């Protein structure tokens, strides 16, 4: 019987083997030729956790920390773990929030995320909130404090230099520099934070974690073998002197203007103040947006870095340079004198001079000490009309080239973003402006620092370095070393000297004259016992449009200096807007800063002067009206633009409907 039905046995065996083969075939293809399942498995099961390293610390020349990181706490909530009988009253009390706020936050948390995931409850708790919460943590299961690093500005100074960080904007993400960033990442938005972003940010670490079906991270994936460790940001060592910086900001209180001090031997910036300054701690954390708007709306524009972006007519402070040019081109010698009687008549327009007594411009040294306008107008003309040059255009071009080599007319290469370049006219500029018909009298004002010439305070300070060093300077910069390495690739461009082709003896003459400015000339107030200061005051005329009419504003008070003459350690430029004579305000401030830097303290004798400077309130009332006018102007032009666009749109629409109407008319006429 069994043998008769043998075929049936084989049918069953074949059925078993056949089904097993089908399963194996499907498995073979599923496991070896369908990579999408591997990708899906990784997608669902592996969580890529990005770990942000602490940002680099910024230290001053003495190693004092200026900008570091501090820990703030975010309160996180996992609603799933919050018990039903949570004492909300106590929680609200600990966090100083109302019951409505609590309910509101809970509602938002539940809307945003599923129950088992952690969401922020309150970000950046204050210290008091943190302390009170930490004491009673055990009462609030489901809540957790998560620490986060934010930037901490010690002394709250140099905000405009250090800059601030913030979340990268969608526009920034489109730029190649931010290719590796993602929405929500932080990046430097201004100042050194922006400039040295790559060095300060360090390298993000990526940790791969497995997660379960509720998206909760669990064990490290493959034992952490794929993880990359985060690398901390590099420390930046600055040339800046934190004490000097704080002192300078104090002196510049209630004044609009700027101070730039440079170490001539290295080009390192010792101090850079743009006044009014602001507390950089305002621009971090959760208050940033509101404070930024407040600072942005301020009529004195504290967010505008005047030291590198504002340009001023240098006034008399340019006179040493004019002298350098005239003597370098052999137009005059140091013995050259000019008989000034208070007015310069050689050009059709008389140019006034402050001094009337005979012999105040008997030679270069005396003329510079007394800042004789007539003398410098004249030697400027002699310089550009020199017979070495074919005509005045070639002469002016030569002047332009000399001044260009002094660091004017182009950005100095400072390691801050958005540096202004000032204005340094050349022959082409005047050709265009005066339609090719101009002579040395047309441009004569440039010789005494008025007219078309415009410089940033940084350029002024930089040119002082050049005179102090007798003909060379390093491009000004802030950073001495990146991560303790002074030869970092990013700093190599600051280790190349820029040299001018003015012969050295000329510098002796100019330095003599500048020394006289302090010792017997216009800047007697800047005199400092035991230190030879070389300086030049400046009083720049300026005009503004207020209420539709051009008015002559109070002069800008300018002062440039370097000291000591024998072994220059500091070169400084001070510009105070609409304050008056250079000798009155800018000179004492510069002198105090030099004393502070060289002697570390202010002598008892000069304390009253210091007090006077600190107390002085020199903000011109016009600032507010000028500011409101310019903002109104912006608003009006914006509104006009919108209106024009709207009108254009509606015209286009009207045209369209006309065309359609015509089409219909044509169609149904017959």
């Amino acid at each position, binding site marked *: 019987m069994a043998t008769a*039905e043998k075929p049936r046995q084989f049918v069953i*065996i074949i059925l078993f083997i056949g089904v097993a083969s089908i399963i*194996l075939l499907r498995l073979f293809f599923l*496991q070896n030729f369908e990579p999408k399942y*591997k990708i899906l498995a*990784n997608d669902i099961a592996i969580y890529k956790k990005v770990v942000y390293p602490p940002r680099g610390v910024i230290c001053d020349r003495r190693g004092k920390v200026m900008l570091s990181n501090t820990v703030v706490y975010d309160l996180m909530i996992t609603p799933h773990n919050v018990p039903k009988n949570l004492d909300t009253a106590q929680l609200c009390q600990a966090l100083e929030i109302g019951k409505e706020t609590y309910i509101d936050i809970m509602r938002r948390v539940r809307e945003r995320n599923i129950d088992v995931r952690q969401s922020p409850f309150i970000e950046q708790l204050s210290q008091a909130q943190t302390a009170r919460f930490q004491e009673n943590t055990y009462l609030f299961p489901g809540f957790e404090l998560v620490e986060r690093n934010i930037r901490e500005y010690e002394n709250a100074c140099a905000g405009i230099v250090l800059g601030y960080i913030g979340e990268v904007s969608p526009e920034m993400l489109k730029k190649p520099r931010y290719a590796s960033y993602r929405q929500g990442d932080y990046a430097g938005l201004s100042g050194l934070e922006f400039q040295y972003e790559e060095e300060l940010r360090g390298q993000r670490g990526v940790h791969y974690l497995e997660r379960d*079906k509720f998206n909760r991270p*669990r064990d490290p994936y493959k034992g952490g073998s794929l993880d990359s460790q985060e690398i901390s940001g590099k420390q930046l060592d600055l040339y800046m002197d934190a004490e000097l910086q704080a002192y300078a900001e104090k002196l510049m209180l209630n004044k609009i203007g700027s101070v730039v001090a440079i170490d001539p031997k290295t080009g390192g910036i010792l101090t850079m103040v743009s006044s009014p300054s602001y507390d950089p701690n305002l621009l971090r954390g959760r208050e940033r947006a509101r404070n930024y708007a407040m600072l942005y709306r301020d009529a004195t524009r504290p967010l505008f870095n005047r030291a590198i972006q504002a340009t001023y007519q240098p006034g008399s402070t340019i006179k040493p340079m004019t002298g350098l040019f005239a003597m370098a081109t052999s137009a005059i010698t140091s013995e050259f004198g000019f008989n000034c009687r208070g007015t310069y008549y050689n050009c059709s327009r008389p140019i006034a001079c402050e001094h009337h007594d005979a012999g105040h411009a008997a030679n270069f040294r005396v003329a510079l000490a007394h800042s004789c306008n007539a003398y410098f107008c004249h030697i400027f003309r002699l310089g550009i009309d020199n017979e070495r040059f074919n005509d005045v255009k070639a002469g002016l071009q030569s002047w332009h080239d000399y001044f260009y080599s002094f660091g004017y007319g182009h950005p100095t290469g400072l390691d801050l973003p958005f540096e202004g370049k000032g204005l340094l006219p050349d022959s082409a500029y005047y050709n265009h402006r005066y339609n090719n018909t101009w002579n040395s009298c047309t441009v004569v004002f440039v010789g005494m620092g008025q007219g078309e010439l415009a410089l940033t305070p940084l350029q002024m300070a930089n040119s002082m370095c050049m005179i102090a060093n007798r003909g060379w300077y390093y491009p000004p910069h802030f950073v001495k070393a990146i991560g303790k390495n002074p030869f970092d690739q990013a700093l190599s461009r600051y280790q190349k000297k820029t040299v001018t082709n003015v012969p050295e003896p000329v510098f002796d003459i100019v330095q003599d004259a500048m020394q006289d400015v302090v010792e017997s000339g216009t800047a007697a107030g800047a005199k400092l016992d035991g230190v030879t200061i070389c300086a030049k005051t400046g009083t720049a005329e300026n005009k503004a449009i207020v209420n539709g009419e051009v008015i002559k504003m109070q002069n800008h008070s300018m002062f440039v200096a370097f000291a000591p003459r024998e072994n220059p350690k500091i070169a400084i430029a001070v510009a105070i807007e609409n304050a008056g004579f250079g000798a009155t305000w800018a000179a004492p401030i510069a002198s105090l800063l030099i004393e502070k830097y060289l002697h570390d303290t202010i002598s008892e004798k000069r304390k009253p002067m210091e007090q006077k400077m600190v107390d002085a309130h020199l903000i011109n009332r016009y600032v507010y009206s000028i500011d409101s006018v310019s903002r109104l102007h912006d608003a009006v032009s914006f509104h006009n633009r919108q209106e024009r666009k709207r009108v254009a749109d509606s015209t286009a629409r009207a045209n369209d409907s006309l065309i359609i109407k015509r089409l219909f008319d044509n169609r149904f006429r017959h």
Partner: protein
Amino acid sequence: MSTQRRTIFNKLDWIILFLYLTLVAIGLCAVFSVEHRTTDTTIFMMNKSYARQFTWFGYSILLGLFIMFTDSKVFSSFAFLLYSSGIAVLILTIFIGVDVKGSRSWIGYGSIRFQPGEVCKIFTAMAIAKFISLPEINFKKFRNRIIAVCIALLPSVFIILQKETGLALVYFCFILVLYREGLPNAILIIGFSAIALVIGTLLIERKTIFIILTVLAVLIAFLMRFTLRRNLLAILVLIFSWGICIGFSQFAVPFAFKHVLQKHQIDRIYSMIGKDVPDEYDKEGGSDEKKVNSSEYNVLQSKIAIGSGGMYGKGYLNGTSTKNQFVPEQNTDFIFCAIGEQFGFVGSLFLVLVYLSLLLRIVFVAERQRSSFSRVYAYCVASILFFHFAINISMTIGLAPVIGITLPFLSYGGSSLISFSALIFILLRLDIDRQVLLR
């Protein structure tokens, strides 16, 4: 006593026992990998399911020893009694069963629960074997064949009433045994044709399948025109089968889908063939939001786990899907994912080959029995194992609809492990007495 023990030792089929132990060991490893967490304080935790599975394995061995020392005549003598009591318990379960995920197939008190449907498989197998081996039964008689089919399918009726359709389908595997014992070949052909027709109906639009069937019939008629001209019966058979097919695809399948099958069953069938559920079968009504096919999620997660295993797998306890419980029901119905993910194709191949060896060995053992009771019983065991194995693995890789049946010896669960073990041990016991003619 000692001679009996020696007989047992000498005549025991060690291959089956070895394959059985291998599968149970693989199963314990798989359940361990699903339950184990790196955060566990000790390697082996008593409150986890692998520990319970281990305990059940111990019970199974005890039961096996008990069976070994039972006279094999007991099984044939008590077959009908056990079957009747099994049916009684099944009926009872409908009323006193514990509600587990919508089905009432479990009975028990407190934490001890078992599924009578699982155990009843053994009794049914014994009843079929007993019925066919009765000397007065001539299995060539149509009446006896019908009785045998009824014995096989009666439990499934009650299991369907318990709403545990997957388990009920298992009883259809006895058809394979009856085929071996003499059911006509047409049974297999008609069975496969029916399955092909159902899938075709679901895949292809109804009008198209009507045209295809008609064209097919006309084509056959054309090819067989000389036979048909002489034979009236052949014409009738052709027309009749065409009519049956049309009726089946045009009316029976839509009717079943609209009125008989539950929503989750429709979901599972459509997720197997990889199509969205058509609107006419959608029981929820025309809601605009995207219909989420819930069983598709299970199958997708299962396929992800198996597919991501690759050739050699991710390594034991390194499977990301297994470890983090992405596959629902992974302990029980989807235990194969754990093997596929952690050991890759090589591991799956090994497992399938072990199963296949077991099945073929059982068929070999069946054919060497002297008594027909043992032979039919062995075939029943092979069929049950085959059905479970084929459907379970197929559903994890999307070849079959998801019906809740376990993978024998591997899946976590006391009822399943103990009843399959009993099935195997009774077979081994009967095989020891293969020279004896059981009555």
